[in-house]
């Protein structure tokens, strides 16, 4: 990067917050997806003014800018695919206000999701979106990816909670979109355009979220099945019976085994699959729904149903689910996690498809996911260094996505397109929709400086 640009960046944010050492560059070249690209410099912005000034400068100089939260993205969104600058928002991490009377929280984008969740819980409220990465990911990253979470089935995703977004447009203009009122139709719904925009349409500097009252009671349970498809069928049965669990997750045998090896919490390593379910709400309703869910599991061939009776037991259940991905990574050196999502009723078919594909290409695939949302994370366990195997992996991924699309699904339920899935996007949305997306992008970012290489690639058209 040119000296003169660096000097200007240092003027904007202070030289302490402009990093250019090679050691720093490699550490800002990755996220939780496995492809890396180094930036030429990193700026750790401290305020909205700085962010505007940086984008302004970037437009003048034709400098690529990739926003970054905690770098836990699974589609490579914060990886600076075209080099240039990484704009780290982690320093902007103040919880500005928790407004108990209007049930709102206003934060800077670098606040860690779990920090907001526990701050509002301390005053009897709930911020429902809880991605598996909750202890690490930032709210800015959550909004940019429209992150889902374990509670999405009942409570929805980040888009259902974001009310106001402040930030900088790609040309460096300050903007404020949305309203804190319950309802608002003042112009285009920019909040929901920006939510899920993967850092390609704006950089967020301040976010206001809706909160909910904390449910009075909750109960968790685990159902064991000898076959994955049985578990998948049970999911539909539970929902059709009118029960709306707060969380309904699935783990296959490969996942159960690896998590158990890591956590040693007494998971049944020979079960074919496990459903993890939690209901919450008023005490009486919780008890009734829990009983009903348990009996549905039993009548759908669950060999065992265990209801957590203490807090510790409950925590263990969810801890198990949260460690699924990383625990799978113990099995082989490279874990490639996919994000195929189908309508809930097609879950059992999707599961069988994944099994078939694993067999066909002789690969180990561990499958877990937000079963209640029809969102599966088939995780291929492989070794990047094995060229021949990687070729099979590529083909398998292709087939998994095709299967998901054939069943009426989507290529990304929650991790976004990033660069990892950009070549599948056109297949899902078709040329008209893709054209509309491209028009929006080029209208807002005429020079294409903000997070280039994401969502769209040359192969997308």
């Amino acid at each position: 990067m040119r000296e003169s640009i660096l000097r200007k960046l240092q003027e904007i944010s202070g030289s302490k917050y402009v990093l250019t050492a090679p050691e720093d560059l490699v550490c800002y070249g990755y996220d939780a997806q496995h492809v890396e690209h180094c930036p030429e410099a990193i700026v750790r912005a401290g305020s909205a003014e700085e962010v505007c000034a940086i984008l302004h400068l970037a437009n003048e100089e034709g400098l690529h800018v990739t926003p970054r939260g905690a770098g836990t993205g699974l589609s490579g969104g914060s990886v600076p695919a075209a080099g240039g600058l990484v704009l780290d928002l982690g320093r902007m991490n103040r919880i500005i206000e928790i407004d108990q009377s209007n049930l709102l929280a206003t934060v800077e984008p670098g606040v860690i999701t779990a920090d907001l969740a526990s701050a509002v819980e301390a005053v009897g409220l709930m911020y429902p979106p809880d991605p598996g990465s909750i202890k690490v990911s930032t709210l800015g990253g959550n909004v940019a990816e429209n992150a889902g979470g374990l509670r999405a089935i009942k409570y929805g995703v980040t888009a259902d909670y974001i009310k106001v977004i402040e930030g900088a447009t790609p040309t460096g203009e300050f903007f404020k979109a949305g309203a804190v009122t319950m309802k608002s139709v003042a112009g285009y719904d920019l909040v929901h355009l920006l939510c899920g925009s993967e850092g390609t349409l704006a950089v967020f500097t301040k976010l206001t979220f809706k909160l909910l009252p904390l449910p009075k009671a909750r109960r968790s349970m685990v159902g064991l099945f000898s076959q994955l498809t049985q578990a998948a069928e049970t999911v539909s049965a539970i929902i059709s019976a009118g029960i709306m669990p707060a969380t309904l997750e699935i783990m296959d045998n490969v996942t159960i085994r690896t998590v158990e090896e890591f956590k040693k919490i007494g998971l049944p390593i020979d079960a074919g699959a496990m459903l993890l379910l939690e209901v919450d709400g008023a005490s009486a309703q919780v008890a009734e729904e829990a009983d009903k869910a348990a009996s549905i599991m039993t009548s759908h061939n669950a060999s065992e149903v265990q209801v957590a009776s203490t807090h510790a037991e409950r925590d263990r259940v969810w801890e198990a689910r949260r460690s699924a991905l990383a625990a799978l990574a113990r099995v082989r050196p490279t874990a490639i996690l996919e994000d195929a999502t189908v309508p809930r009723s097609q879950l059992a078919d999707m599961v069988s498809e994944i099994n078939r594909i694993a067999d066909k290409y002789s690969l180990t695939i561990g499958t877990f996911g937000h079963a209640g949302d029809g969102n599966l994370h088939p995780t291929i366990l492989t070794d990047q260094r094995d060229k021949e195997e990687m070729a099979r992996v590529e083909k398998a991924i292709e087939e998994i996505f095709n299967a998901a699309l054939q069943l009426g699904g989507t290529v990304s339920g929650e991790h976004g397109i990033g660069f990892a899935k950009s070549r599948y996007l056109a297949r899902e949305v078709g040329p008209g929709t893709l054209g509309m997306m491209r028009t929006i992008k080029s209208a807002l970012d005429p020079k294409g400086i903000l997070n280039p290489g994401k969502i769209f690639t040359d192969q997308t058209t």
Partner: protein
Amino acid sequence: MLNELDRLTFNCIKCGYCKAACPVYKEIGEEAASPRGRVRLIRGVYGGDVSLSQRYRKLIELCISCRACTAECPSGVSPNQAVLNARHHLAIECGIPLIKRLIFRRAMTARRMFPASAKLLGFLQRAIILQSRYSPARLILPILGLPFDKAIPYFQLKTFRDRMPEVIPTTNRKYRVAYFVGCGADLIYPEIGEAVVNLLTHFGVEVVIPREQMCCGTPVFTSGDFEGAKYLARQNLKVLSNLDVDAIITACGSCGTTIKHEWHDLLGIEVPSELTSKVYDITEFLTDCLAVLLSAHTPKAKTITYHDPCHLVRGMGVRNQPRKLLSSLADTRYVELVGADTCCGGGGAYSIYHPDMSRKIGERKADNILKTEADLVATGCPVCILQLREMFSIAGISRQVEHTAVVLNRALKEKSQK
């Protein structure tokens, strides 16, 4: 060596779970100062895209070895272990700074010289009153790169081991144990050693304090000097293997962890499992082997809390035992500390090499302790005691900080007086 670094780091999937746990990253906020970043850098050294630069060294040295990252990592990577190996690699490739080499190779490994230098230091301290916060003698501290107001522990004129007989008998002997004193209790806080010995003999345990024991080696290998640490480990092993005892007692999480795990896992020394399984922290031995519960004793404090030393809780896995003992004290209330098991920033010699970082981490801890409104905080490691006392003294706040064994021993004495 490079292969070793690759093996230790290859399974990292960059999920970032370890970032949430790292106290150093929390203060700096730069990815390269996070465990995930360090793992990437170490892999880079193997892969050839990172060189052994000053910046690399600094980032590798900034780790305080609290092991919080390792406890979080679901992929089985131990960023903390990888860092220690990276330091060893640096030591091999770039050498160890002269001053450390003098301390580790000359002073600490010579059986008599280390205690002797500490005693000399104790004498000098008394002669030039370094202790007074405003003493002009403190002007030497900034020259050594330390803050002017850095607390310097008083080194003893006579070490704990010098003062004690080698065997301390008991009536109704149930067990016979060896006490591995460690440098902290030996040279700085002899009251810890006295408390350990009193407690054990009181409950029917004969205590042997092997004369020839040396430093466990933690400060040596954490600096990358594996050779020096291996020498110490082998000497100690010789001493500990020839004793006819039921257990080896430590009152310092680092000594315990080092003997139990690091001699084997890090330094690759054959340590018989009969020996490692005999290592107990004092609180662990009291509860698990002697079933001691000290009910009906009255210590001075009304409210007590407890800070988990990193190596005691994550290294030795001792979490419940000290809490159980402290909660059993009558007329006192035990309150749990928020973030009890996060590092206090002491980290052995870390506070000397990284005074600013050490202080930042320590201040967070001190704040949390103040929130409990406890008038006494117990802990299980001399370095944590030193650090916490310094944090309170800087803030001008009076709070008792004591070793768990000291608190228990005091309770015991007060009971016998009644």
